[in-house]
């Protein structure tokens, strides 16, 4: 069990909610105060991506790029060569959606510490529909050598992650969500790049989540507990480098793994966990997320329900999985 401290009000009706991107906005300003090399570039979405706070505090260190995502990241590469630590933001659908090759060549292969911030990722982008619901960004970014990939579970983690990324010296991707989501952690909760956290211990299955899905898994674990199923919940905010040790140890304890993400399960977070376990500890894995299809317009609640990502739906999927799958490794 890690020393992670969950928000004590997490399951109350008035749990505090905040968009994950708001934490990024605060973290970026703090990072800018701590290190004058930190700069920010945005592609005509400064309020949406929450770079406004930084822009107001450091107008000379903010650069407006216009609607030009290829230029956004390649400028970032040039600024990094000049010694800066550039955070470059847009919607995830456009960056890294549109400019992946530029990221690959001028940032990842070139190994420059540009911080690519993709906001409005996942189904929570809701009514804008499939074009704007970026579901492939985790996959796109985690296959790039040198790249660090972070998907915070709430706004507090986004704040911490942003400040850490400013100092990690590496090409990095930070995935953000638009809508308010419950705050699962506290200011005192630990957050390290490359660490996964066991939020709840269990014996029957490990529910592993990234980003907004961790909250859904914690709620699903409550439902399952009422039905006599003891689920472990593992929060994995760093997709790359993956915390192999924590994930394998949890799989060894429970013998079954379910992953959940607001994105394509193929090549995404679930793909990463399945790759790891198939090599180090073959374990049955059920991946919950987008099943090789695009999203569509709707409220986040409607979409999460339709695509099976609510606590109730995840609990159902978990029970089916447990009923149909032997438990491996229990007694190792």
């Amino acid at each position: 069990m890690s020393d992670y401290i969950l928000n004590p009000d997490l399951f109350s009706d008035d749990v505090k909610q905040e968009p994950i991107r708001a934490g990024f906005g605060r973290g970026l300003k703090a990072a800018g105060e701590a290190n004058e090399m930190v700069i920010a570039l945005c592609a005509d979405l400064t309020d949406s991506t929450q770079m406004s706070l930084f822009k107001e505090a450091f107008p000379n260190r903010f650069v407006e790029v216009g609607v030009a995502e290829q230029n956004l990241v390649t400028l970032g590469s040039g600024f990094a060569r000049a010694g800066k630590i550039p955070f470059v933001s847009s919607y995830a659908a456009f960056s890294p959606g549109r400019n992946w090759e530029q990221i690959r060549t001028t940032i990842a292969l070139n190994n420059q510490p540009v911080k690519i911030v993709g906001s409005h990722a996942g189904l929570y982008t809701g009514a804008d529909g499939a074009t704007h619901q970026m579901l492939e960004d985790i996959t796109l970014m985690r296959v790039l050598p040198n790249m660090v990939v972070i998907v915070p579970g709430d706004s507090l983690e986004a704040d911490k992650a942003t400040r850490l990324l400013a100092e990690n010296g590496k090409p990095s991707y930070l995935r953000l969500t638009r809508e308010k989501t419950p705050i699962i952690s506290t200011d005192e909760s630990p957050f390290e790049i490359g660490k996964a956290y066991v939020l709840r211990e269990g014996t029957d299955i490990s529910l592993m989540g990234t980003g907004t899905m961790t909250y859904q898994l914690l709620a699903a674990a409550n439902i399952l507990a009422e039905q006599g199923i003891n689920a472990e919940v593992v929060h994995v905010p760093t997709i790359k480098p993956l915390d192999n040790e924590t994930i394998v140890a949890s799989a060894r304890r429970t013998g079954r793994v379910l992953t959940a993400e607001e994105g394509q399960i193929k090549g995404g977070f679930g793909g990463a966990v399945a790759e790891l376990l198939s090599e180090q500890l073959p374990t049955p894995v059920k991946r919950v997320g987008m099943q090789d299809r695009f999203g569509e317009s709707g409220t986040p609640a409607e979409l999460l329900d339709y695509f099976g990502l609510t606590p109730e739906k995840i609990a159902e999927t978990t029970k089916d999985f447990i009923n149909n799958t032997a438990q491996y490794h229990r007694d190792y």
Partner: protein
Amino acid sequence: MSGQLTTSQLQQKAEIIREDIIRMLEAAGSGHSAGPLGLADIFTALYFNIMNFDPKNPDWEDRDIFLLSNGHCIPVQYAAMAEAGFFDKEELLTLRKFGSRLQGHPERERLPGLENTSGPLGSGLSQAAGYAYSMQYMDDIKHRFVYVVMGDGELDEGNIWEAAMFAGKNKLSHIIAFIDRNNIQIDGNTEDVMPLEDLKGKWESFGWHVIEIDGNNIESVIDAASIGRAITNRPTVIIAHTIPGKGVDFMEYDYHWHGVAPNSEQAKDALHKLRTLNGKITHEGQGVQ
């Protein structure tokens, strides 16, 4: 490096660089011939007159920055860097070979003195703009410049025009960009594949100061860069008309030589052409063996 060599000494440097390009490509067995040969005079001017750098201290903080956007022309940069003392000339023959620092397309982390990694076209001008913006608006640096070389076929890429717009808006006067206007790209003549003209008018409308020169005339290259440095309210682009394959008559103007390396017989012939001004003189000069 400013002002140390005479024009005829610079021309000799360009000759050596061309011969080295032929040798490298022959040894590699693949690579691009026409562009690097056409660019030899511009690179000679850059590395032996225009730019400030220290080959023994590649990260010297007062250096000028050079970015190659069309990474496939890297043989000419490797040849110029070796001639300028960044590394031993023998290493040129490792081009494109396993374990070499001289990758087929340039990788910054492999070879000190490279400022970027390129190959996929269209991203060099943006990197120049990022660096130049940092100099001009964040670091208060006045004495350093960012030189970037682009191909003309490369201008088909939208990323270039995003960068052109950005540099124009921000009046990034520390950028001095060269366009290697040799009129060829892989599928044929640039004006057939995707017309670029009115090229001068395009750049002017984006807020750039445009200079057109004979890019195979070293003095013209030096003069144009000097004008570019003197212009403080706009970025400068130098449309450098070059002859693809310059110096080797059977390669000149022929787009088929864009992405092909000479075999040993062709290389021997090419070296002979270079040393005899394509047969106009009988005496072969003293190239590096």
